[in-house]
């Protein structure tokens, strides 16, 4: 190998040809990576980070074009390689891992075959040797029973297992550089934690350089040595993980850090600070700093006159910033909770509650197939949400939290138990049997911003229709009602004329919230409303929900897999596993020992955006089992790291009632749990 950097971008400019002309996605980018180094590339969606990843392996497609500059890999200019050389580099020296593992795997080939192909094609290794290499690699990515996994097809594996296979495929050729583009986005927190730890460990063992691309600073910190922050195709700050996290000098980096929910933050004491405005399209590029329009520290005279280069900082090796005011900015401090959690404990009367709620799905058997065993999506769920409060329901995907949301909303009907809304029983009422008054009392916000709005209708129509259906009497001027609702969710009234495809993900979700607010509901059930959004956008939506709640006294049932967001927004938390509530209580008591072992594992998996506070993780083995009716003991028994013994499998766990309404369902006595566990959430100043 030649001396010098492994990968170097020298003044690279990339543009995409579109119908409206050529768009400079990357105006000028220079950075370098050494062999064995892990570098993180962070920025909001649309900032050009994926373009960087694609340009390394020349996958820009027909529309993309390298306008200027050179991309050097191991000293060779990638643009000069011919097809055969390029193929050799792509397969053996550079490997890629993308966001969706299912899209990277061939559904009609066993994963073993796909793994073996890599050394067989690129190195001419025989089938037997390739088989051994594949088994060895699967063991290395910590997949249990590699021989059995080899014979499976991708759809027979869980998302986490699939991503491990993709990583194994990338590493089996022993590349010098591994490019990972949002490898954990879309995975559960627990799976994400396991994958991140795996990457970290593999890196330490194999000395592979990693370019890790993410929109979330919290995930990058776990894997990387160095971080580059991108905005509108340019690096605005670059430095070691410690430099970026302890002394960020660019206002954008600070913005990204301030909008990250962390386990220590909640809505009352350390509000998230979203970055104002949104990423503008790359078409119109003003002179000077690209971030100036959204920057709180902007000094028009200096920031928008001339281009601002990435300059090294004095006295900090490797730290480069593209900001004229970098040296003037006050030192950055991590926002930590202030004040006490006393007001959160104030009681309020219950608005919506469930008692013994159950939902059993009978999978429809085909005309020729035998009937499959029924699935128990909810078992004996008791939760309460107080007026004007937030009840959060957390758990991994498949734990039944979305089913709970649907039953509350009436999209599904419970098979047993009760749901009481304002003293009236609604558990058995599907939404088509609910009265108009009942429907307007409870509305829902959905998860996927891409599918929550009908692409054929304008925003104004979507909201106007909700107004007409949910308000009494025809409004005198529907346009004014729509404009008022848009104003409430902080959108311009002009948006009423747009179609959903002309909106960003965050805007769509705000329109969806406005639509849910049309009938002035008492309760809003929000099913993962922010999980598909960038962290910076997530902060604005979470803040909006908190503000709306404070202003209107709306009760929020907030379904989420993200414990940091839950910690921030919730008053009460219900932790769900296999359809059962394993722990319930006030947010402060659930997030402090004693925990249910499942809560403990979930909490330990939350990415902590602070290089100095990386905790050891409790990894859950295996996938979530099938929620069968036959389950007798504790639902978590099969994966519980603190399993006591056979009693866990055979007997339903007793419910320990602790202070207030805090309850834990576990065979281990609460006192014992408390002594076993250490606090995973930093205590607030008062408690310390």
């Amino acid at each position: 190998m030649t001396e010098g950097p492994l990968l170097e971008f020298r003044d690279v400019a990339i543009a995409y040809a579109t119908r409206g002309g050529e768009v400079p996605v990357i105006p000028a980018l220079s950075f370098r990576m050494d062999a064995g180094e892990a570098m993180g590339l962070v920025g909001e969606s649309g900032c050009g980070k994926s373009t960087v990843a694609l340009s390394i392996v020349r996958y820009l497609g027909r529309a993309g074009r390298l306008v200027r500059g050179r991309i050097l890999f191991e000293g060779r200019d990638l643009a000069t390689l011919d097809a055969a050389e390029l193929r050799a580099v792509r397969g053996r020296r550079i490997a890629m891992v993308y966001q969706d593992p299912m899209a990277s795997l061939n559904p009609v080939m066993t994963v073993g075959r796909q793994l073996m192909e890599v050394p067989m094609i690129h190195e001419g290794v025989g089938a037997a040797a390739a088989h051994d290499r594949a088994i060895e690699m699967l063991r290395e990515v910590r997949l249990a029973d590699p021989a059995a996994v080899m014979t499976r097809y991708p759809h027979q594996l869980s998302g986490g297992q699939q991503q491990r296979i993709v990583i194994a495929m990338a590493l089996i050729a022993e590349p010098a550089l591994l490019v990972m583009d949002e490898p954990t986005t879309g995975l559960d927190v627990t799976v994400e934690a396991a994958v991140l730890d795996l990457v970290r460990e593999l890196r330490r063992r194999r000395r592979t350089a990693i370019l890790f691309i993410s929109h979330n600073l919290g995930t990058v910190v776990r894997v990387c040595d160095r971080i580059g922050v991108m905005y509108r195709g340019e690096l605005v700050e670059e430095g070691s993980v410690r430099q970026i996290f302890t002394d960020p000098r660019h206002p954008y980096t600070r913005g990204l850090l301030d909008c990250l929910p962390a386990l220590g933050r909640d809505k009352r004491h350390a509000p998230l600070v979203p970055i104002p405005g949104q990423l503008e399209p790359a078409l119109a590029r003003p002179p000077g700093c690209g971030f100036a329009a959204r920057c709180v520290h902007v000094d028009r005279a200096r920031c928008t006159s001339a281009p601002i280069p990435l300059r090294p900082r004095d006295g900090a090796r490797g730290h480069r910033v593209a900001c004229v005011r970098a040296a003037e900015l006050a030192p950055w401090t991590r926002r930590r909770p202030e004040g006490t959690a006393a007001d959160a404990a104030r009681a309020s009367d219950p608005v919506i509650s469930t008692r013994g709620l159950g939902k059993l799905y009978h999978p429809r058997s085909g005309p020729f197939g035998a009937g499959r065993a029924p699935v128990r999506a909810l078992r004996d769920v008791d939760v309460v949400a107080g007026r004007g409060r937030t009840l959060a329901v957390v758990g991994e995907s498949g734990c039944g939290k979305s089913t709970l949301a649907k039953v509350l909303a009436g999209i599904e009907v419970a098979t047993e138990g009760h749901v009481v809304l304002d003293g009236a029983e609604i558990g058995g009422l599907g939404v088509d049997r609910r009265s108009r008054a009942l429907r307007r009392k409870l509305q829902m916000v959905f998860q996927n911003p891409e599918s929550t709005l009908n692409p054929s209708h304008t925003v104004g129509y979507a909201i106007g229709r909700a107004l007409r259906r949910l308000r009494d009497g025809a409004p005198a001027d529907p346009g004014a009602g729509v404009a008022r609702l848009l104003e409430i969710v902080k959108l311009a009234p002009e948006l009423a004329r747009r179609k959903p495809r002309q909106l960003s993900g965050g805007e769509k979700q705000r329109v969806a919230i406005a639509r849910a607010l049309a009938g002035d509901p008492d309760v809003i059930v929000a099913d993962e409303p922010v999980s598909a959004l960038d962290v910076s956008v997530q902060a604005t939506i979470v803040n909006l929900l908190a503000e709306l709640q404070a202003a209107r006294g709306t009760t929020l049932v907030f379904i989420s897999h993200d414990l940091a967001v839950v910690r921030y927004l919730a008053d009460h938390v219900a932790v769900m596993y296999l359809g059962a509530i394993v722990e319930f209580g006030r947010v402060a008591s659930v997030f402090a020992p004693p925990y249910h072992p499942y809560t403990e594992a979930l909490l330990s998996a939350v990415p902590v955006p602070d290089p100095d506070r990386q905790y050891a993780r409790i990894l859950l083995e295996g996938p979530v089992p099938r929620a069968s009716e036959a389950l007798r003991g504790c639902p978590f028994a099969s994966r519980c790291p603190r399993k006591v013994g056979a009693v866990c499998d055979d007997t339903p766990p007793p419910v320990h009632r602790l202070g207030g309404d805090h309850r834990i369902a576990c065979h281990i006595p609460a006192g014992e749990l408390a002594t076993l566990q250490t606090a995973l959430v930093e205590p607030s100043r008062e408690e310390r």
Partner: protein
Amino acid sequence: MSAPATAEVLSVSPPATSRRRARDLWRGVARVGESRPATVGVLIILFWLAVAALAPLLAPYPPNASDLAALAHPTPSRAHWLGTDHLGRDLLSRLAWGARPVLVIAPLAVLGATALGCLLGLAAGYHRRWIDLVLTRACDIVLSFPVIILYMIILTHFGSSAWNIVGVLTLTKAPIIARIVRGLTLELREREYVAAAKMRGESALYIMLVEILPNARGPLLVDMCLRTGYNIIIIGVLGFLGIGLPPPDPDWGGMVKDTYGMMSVWPHMALVPCAAISSLVIGFNLLAVGLRELGLRD
């Protein structure tokens, strides 16, 4: 479904002024120019539409008039640019007049089949359960029948007229459209905006027509174009079998039938109407290809 609910569904109109809507429509139509196949297809279709519309001006002779003098040399000449058929009738005139029934019947039958197919497909896909079972089985039965025999039975029984041909094409093509719409509906009914509509208590009819159907328009439009082309072929086949439009008025399929016996002597008599049918079908197919391409692009 109660009467007021239906009335409300039908009065639904997104709050867009008519001028803006016209502008959006024009933008949509103008996008056809971005796809080369679509442009060529539209040009071919426009050509035939113009020929059909201007038939009285374009045709040098009445379509059924025989020029006995030309019978000796029916090949193209200065008097008859495309020649005459075996009865001395001017082929150019018959071609121009013959474009009219095809260009009315084929699209009309497609519209009928689409309307019926959408209703069936939406009902089957949205309600599932027994409605789905009954409707899909009924469609399967129609589709499993050899269509040509079906046409012969129906058209010989009810007599051959333009309306009957439209009816027969509607009935036999609707099940295909219904299948497509059912498939799309099964997918679209799970979208969150449909759940949101249920949350505000919309009727099933509203959800089907206003929330689901507009989002199926892309694939439907492509299929309508293809289907128009197929219908043109079928109309030709019906004419060829002698159960198409009644003589003596010109009908492209009938023109082939009357003259294919003279193929070895005067091939132009059958080839000219064949070429007309092919070009029009190709026009619609190209438009379909182009529309699919444009649909994939955004």
